[in-house]
C-alpha cells in the first residue's frame, strides 16, 4: 500500500506510467492531497485490512511541500508510528517514508521494487507459522 502525495510523489507515479517504467505490481498506490494528511490511523487500517507493508511518500524537505510543511508532519507521524509498531512487536521496516519529487519517477520505481523485496523477505504479516498464543 502506498500513500502518495498529489503534488510530488503522485505526479512521479503518473510520470512512471507515462514513461512505461515497470515496477512491482504488488504496490497499490493511493493519491492523497498531502503526505501530511496521512493519519497514523490510515496506516494501521491498511495493516489491519491485510497490507504487509505501507509506504508514505511526499515532497522533498525542507521546502518542496505544496502546503509549506506537510511533509514534516508526515515525518513526525511516521517516525513515531514506526517506533510504536516495534513497541507492539511488529517489524518497523513494514512502514517506510520517502521523499520523491515529481520528476523522480526512476526513484519511485527503485523505492517500490526495493520495498517489495524487503517485505518479501519479512514475509506476510499474518503468517500462519507465527504460531503460539497470547
Amino acid at each position, binding site marked *: 500500500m502506498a500513500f502518495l502525495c498529489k503534488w510530488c510523489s503522485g505526479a512521479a507515479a503518473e510520470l512512471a506510467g507515462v514513461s512505461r517504467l515497470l515496477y512491482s505490481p504488488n504496490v497499490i498506490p493511493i493519491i492523497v492531497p498531502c503526505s501530511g494528511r496521512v493519519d497514523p490511523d490510515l496506516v*494501521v487500517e491498511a495493516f489491519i485490512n491485510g497490507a504487509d507493508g505501507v509506504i508514505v511518500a511526499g515532497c522533498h524537505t525542507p521546502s518542496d511541500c505544496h502546503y509549506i510543511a506537510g511533509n514534516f508532519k508526515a515525518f*513526525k*507521524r511516521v517516525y513515531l508510528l514506526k517506533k510504536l509498531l516495534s513497541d507492539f*512487536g*511488529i517489524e518497523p521496516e513494514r512502514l517506510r517514508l520517502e521523499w520523491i519529487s515529481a520528476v523522480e519517477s526512476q526513484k519511485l520505481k527503485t523505492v517500490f521494487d526495493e520495498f517489495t523485496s524487503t517485505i518479501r523477505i519479512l514475509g506476510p504479516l499474518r503468517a500462519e507459522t507465527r504460531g503460539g498464543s*497470547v
Partner: protein
Amino acid sequence: MTRPNIVIVHGAICGGCDVALANSVEAISKFLENFELAYWSVAVDSRLSDLKSLNRIDVAVFMGGVRTSEDEEMAKWLREKSRILVAFGSCSAYGGIPGLAALIPPSELVNSVKSTITTSSQGEGVIELSKLPELGTYRALPHVVDVNIVVPGCPPPINVVNEFVDVLLKHISSGKLEGPLVVAGTKAQCENCPRKPRDLSKLQIPDIKRIYESRIEENKCFLEQGILCLGPITREGCEHSCINANMPCTGCFGPLPGFEDVGLRYIAGILALVAIEREKELLEQGLAKILDKLVDRLGVLYRYTLPWSRLYKLRLSLGSGGRAR
C-alpha cells in the same frame, strides 16, 4: 417491595476503586438506603457461594480488568444474571495500569513474580504460586461482555461516584439500559482547563521533556512547556485534580468519543505539532532527536488504554505472543 440488589465484584484490581466508592459518604448512604448490598467481599461479610446462589442480580459493579480465566467466567456469569452491568474504574473500562502488561506473555509475568526476591519471600527467591488461576489475554470488561454503565477514573473521584449513584437510581426503575453510558464529560479536559492558553490555534510545543527535567511553571499550559499532557484527548469530569496539583493529565478518564485509540490520535494531532516553528531549521535529524525524548511511548500514550489500541488488536490477531522488541 423488596429493594433491588447490588453486587460488587473484582477482577484484576489494586483496591483503589473500593476505597473510592467507600470514600463517598453520600454514595454509600444512598446505596444502603436504596439497594440490598448482596456481595462486596472487601466490605461486607459475604462469600462467593452467596453470590453464586443469587438467581437475579439488579446491578453488578465490576472493578478491575479481566486478567485470569476466573475473571472472564465471572464477567460472563454476571452479564447473564444482571440487568445492569457497570464497568467501574479505568482498569475495568479501558484496561488501566495492569493493561500495560498486556503485551508481555503471561508465562513471563508469572516467572518474574516468582523470581523477584521480596522481604516476604525471605531471600529464597522462589515463590510458590500453586493456586494462581490461569492468566489469559488481558482485556477490558467491554471487550469481554457488553456493559451498560462505564465509570472512568483511576480511581473515580468523589463527584463521579456520586453522579454514578444518581445515574444508577434513575435507570434502575426504567429497566435495562442500552449501550454503554459513560459517567464523564464528552468534552476534552482542555475545554475548561485552568491553564488553557489564550489562543489554542497558536499552541506551540517547543520540545519534549520528562517531568523531572524541568521546573514546571504553574498556570502555564503543560504542552507549551514541552511536558506531554493527555488533556486534549481525554474526557473531562475529574475537575482537573492532577492539573491543579501541577501534574499533567495522564488520561485516566479515557478517550473522547471517536478517539478510542488514544496513542494514534495523540501522534496525529499533538505530537505532529512538536517544534512546529523550527522544522526547517532542525530538519529530519533534529526532529528525530526531539521525538526520541519520548522514551516510554506505551506508558505515555496508552497508560490506561492499551487494550483499546488498534495495534494491540492487530497484534492479537497475528496470534503470536512475543514480547515487544
